[in-house]
């Protein structure tokens, strides 16, 4: 076992993975988890209430502030030597991830369809030509 795996990681739960079945919980069921309210969000109250209700069903500490600073200090407080999270297309997520000084393990979200190679995204119809067959199969994967 490498030294990076010696201690329990800190799970970073973000706005794309608020589920008890999310990959970090499945992979590290005993690890502590944290959510950080990012003050750069420009949401109305009802969105915050909805997400907060989702969070209350998870074993997650709910924090607020600058996500990088909070994740760093929470990891330090818990003796975690790395952070585990789920891939997100959000540029804000990428900024936070790259600013973290600790190693970050990024887990893939559960895919809708698995498409190999380059996918033409010029229009939905082109994507759908590739995706339709696996999309209609349980698990989203064409039998090989």
């Amino acid at each position, binding site marked *: 076992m490498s030294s990076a795996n010696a201690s329990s990681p800190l799970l970073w739960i973000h706005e794309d993975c608020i*589920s008890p079945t999310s990959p970090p919980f499945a992979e590290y069921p005993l690890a502590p988890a944290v959510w950080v309210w990012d003050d750069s969000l420009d949401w109305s109250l009802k969105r915050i209430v909805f997400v907060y209700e989702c969070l209350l069903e998870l074993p997650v500490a709910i924090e607020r502030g600058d996500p990088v600073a909070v994740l760093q200090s929470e990891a330090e407080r818990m003796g975690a030597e790395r952070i585990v999270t789920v891939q997100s297309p959000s540029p804000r997520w990428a900024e936070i991830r790259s600013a973290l000084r600790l190693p970050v393990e990024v887990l893939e979200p559960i895919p809708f369809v698995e498409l190999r190679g380059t996918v033409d995204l010029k229009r*939905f119809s082109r994507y759908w030509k590739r995706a339709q067959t696996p999309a209609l199969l349980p698990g989203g994967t064409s039998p090989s």
Partner: protein
Amino acid sequence: MRRDFTDRDDLVAYLRHEFPSAAAIDPHVSPILGGRRQALGLLQQIQPARYAASRNYLAGAVTHLSPYIRHGVLTLAEVRDFALRRVANPFEALKFITELAWRDYWQRLYTAWGRGIALDREPYKTGHTDYADTLPPDLREARTGLACMDAFSRQLQETGYLHNHARMWMAAYVVHFRRVRWQAGAEWFLQHLLDGDPASNHLSWQWVASTFSHRPYFFNRENLEKYTGGSYCRECPARGHCDFEGTYDELSQRLFPIALDS
């Protein structure tokens, strides 16, 4: 932050106090409850086969799952797999699964374009360049005088939910009838929609605007009346003389005369 609350009112009072700037954007709280338990309950109620024929109607068999999918409370894959178990033949769920695929498609574009989703991806095909930068106050305040748009505006701000067809009508109204750049409407939606996702939201607005489609999307009153069961038109003060009266050809001439000439 706190995790223990006596009830929803207690939670809401706490969040109102902790997030005063969010409450200042809009103080309403949605009747839609967060959480996976709630999401799984809704998932049990989906009717994928009925969805295809009725989804464009405001009273159709839509699922209300989008806020949960947006935040990963449910994955697209598990919703699709559940839908497939509900039908005898996968093609009965084709339309339902196609709509799930739109989200997958938008997410793939978000990965490719990042903040570029907020820029016009292509020129408008409307013939116009003189779009206003800000949302008209009468729309935000639900006093356009159009019963449909005022109701949609209130519903958006009070509940954080709008039927997809209502979103399209509203986006077309903002961009093509009021000639406001799509970004102003998209940012407004994102503040309020519980399922507000930058990719799905912005790129759908671009699809309506024609900056990510071959032609602008618009509608006429007959279309709106049909899919709403006439509920707005019946009580509308602008009944018989609203902006949406006319055939598609007539509206196209009125809205996009320059594009049609060229």
